[in-house]
């Protein structure tokens, strides 16, 4: 049993609060990612679990044991650092053996386990090399082997792939997932790369300003974000301002878009909150769920300003009637609208999401383009 639990964990530095009461339960063998913008407190959280930072408040349980006041070497975690942190004066094999040595594991067993761990990260022949003689990807594999060879209760990784180029990163993502699943090891992974988070995780916790904004499976996070912040942070999202005109059931809304040509929109499905007629809301639609043509439901007309080729699809960038920026994604091979033309677009009612109207949504669409590609 190797659950990891954070109960009301906070950390303040003087007057600034880095983490403000995080509750998180990672179950046995689960892979949870902390995802969030720079400075939101991901590293602080992870380092509190590892024991390098003492929380200002709250408690941490690893495998049912309260470790809040325990030194890092008593916590039985395996940590992988962004910049590898391999011991430069030791060979690869000695690095991997380090945790076994300080645990006084016998030489024969240590040798066998080191060989096994190096085999697992596909570096069986590299035991005699020094870290300086390895590539970045190989170094991080060694760091991974060193962390898992001690069979820790929890594996902690802080942006382990961010120093690697994108191809290597994808390759190592698969490796980490394969090894983590094979060993069934409880894992907390930190990244600010949303596609990495979606690819790897059983659940993703989106953090913002020292708090977890939403924790859910990658699909749920993507399809039904709990807040406009999450909607914007994970994948691209279009936002339009609207007013609720009618609510015919719990999951059925009629809306009127704000702007020069008021359109009527319908939304169907579970929403992030309950809204009442007359309330201002943010209406959100994924670019890739767009439907084309004058028959499309929840229809808008956009003027096309730019078409960018993304490989398998096109990203069309333009503006709706009120001047709001709109993105739509179209598969390659279909007709691609020319710049300057008008395009009829729409979304199914099931694909229209509603969020509370707050400051987040203001620069939302502009912010969306800064995020990487959705998975």
């Amino acid at each position, binding site marked *: 049993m190797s659950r990891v639990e954070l109960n009301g964990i906070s950390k303040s530095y003087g007057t600034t609060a880095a983490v403000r009461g995080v509750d998180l339960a990672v179950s046995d063998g689960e892979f949870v990612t902390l995802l969030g913008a720079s400075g939101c407190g991901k590293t602080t959280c992870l380092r509190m679990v590892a024991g390098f930072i003492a929380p200002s408040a709250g408690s941490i349980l690893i495998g049912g044991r309260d470790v809040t006041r325990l030194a*890092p*070497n008593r916590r039985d975690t395996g940590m992988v650092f962004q910049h590898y942190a391999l011991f430069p*004066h030791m060979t690869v094999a000695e690095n991997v053996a*380090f945790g076994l040595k*300080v645990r006084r594991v016998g030489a024969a067993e240590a040798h066998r386990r080191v060989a096994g761990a190096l085999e697992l990260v596909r570096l069986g022949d590299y035991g005699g090399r020094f870290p300086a003689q390895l590539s970045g990807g190989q170094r991080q594999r060694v760091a991974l082997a060193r962390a898992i060879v*001690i069979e820790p209760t929890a594996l902690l990784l802080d942006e382990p792939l961010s120093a690697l180029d994108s191809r290597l990163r994808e390759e190592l993502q698969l490796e980490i997932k394969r090894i983590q699943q094979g060993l069934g090891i409880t894992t907390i992974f930190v990244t600010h790369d949303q596609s990495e988070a979606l690819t790897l995780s059983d659940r993703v916790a989106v953090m913002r300003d020292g708090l977890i904004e939403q924790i859910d499976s990658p699909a749920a996070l993507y399809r039904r974000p709990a807040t406009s912040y999450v909607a914007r942070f994970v994948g691209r999202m279009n936002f339009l301002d609207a007013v609720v005109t009618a609510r015919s059931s719990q999951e059925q809304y009629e809306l009127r878009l704000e702007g020069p040509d008021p359109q009527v929109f319908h939304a169907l499905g579970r929403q992030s909150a309950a809204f009442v007629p007359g309330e201002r809301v943010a209406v959100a639609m994924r670019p890739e769920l767009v439907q084309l043509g004058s028959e499309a439901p929840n229809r808008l007309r956009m003027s096309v300003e730019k078409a960018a080729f993304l490989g398998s699809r096109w990203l069309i960038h333009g503006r709706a009637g009120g001047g709001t920026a709109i993105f739509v994604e179209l598969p390659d091979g279909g007709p691609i609208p020319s710049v300057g033309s008008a395009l009829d677009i729409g979304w199914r009612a099931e694909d229209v999401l509603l969020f509370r109207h707050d400051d987040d949504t203001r620069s939302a669409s502009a912010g969306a383009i800064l995020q990487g590609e959705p998975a």
Partner: protein
Amino acid sequence: MIGRLALRLAVAAVLLFLLAPLVVVVVASFSDGPVMAFPPASYTTRWYAAISDEFWQAAWRSSVLATVSMVVAVVVGTPAGITLARGEFRGKAAISAFCLSPLMVPALVLAVASYQLSVVMFDLTGTTYAGSFGGLVLGHIALTIPFVIRAVIVGHTHLDASLEEAARGLGAGPFQTLRLVTLPQLGPSILSGGVFAFAASFEDLPISLFLGGGDAPTLPVQIYSTVEFNLGADLMAISSVIIAASFAVLFILERVVGVEKVINAGKGAH
């Protein structure tokens, strides 16, 4: 092209400037004449045979003194340096400045101060350290510790803090982490501090003059007092022996760790 040539000429000029005195000393030590002549009219090795026992004894005394000072400086200075580099405590800057102050003040000041302290101690207790080998060792430790502390502090600033965290995370206690990760990383810095400590002690004149016993001089004191009376070729011979020994030490260091690494210890240990 021109730039590179100019650079080479400049390097050659500096080398000539630095090495010329050494060459003169070594050549003069082989000069076969009653007075120092350069270049010598003819050559001999008899000055080496003529080096008096006093010189050899003084050289041995200085070597022992420098070795003891270096060992104590390393043993005391390493933990002190690590503490000063890593600790967050009140008065850290002041303590740090105090520990490094012997590097800032001339050795002569240190010597006079140590001597005065020994006089005060004699007045108060009737016994004191000056005039004995033990007193000399104490004075030289004060002289040499800062070299090790400084080297360790500099080396520590170049350490990757996540290495120690990695060790702790893998189950190593604070002491194991120090022994298995921190100290090996600081090795070149400590060695560097030790080499400088040894050299500082071996060549020190003022402290040895003030604190040493008159009947057991260190090599610099012995040379100094000899020079007062004559500048003989045997002096050139013993100087040449020191030069040879220094080159031997440098050669061994170069072979074992690389001189550059020792001199810039810690700057980029790997």
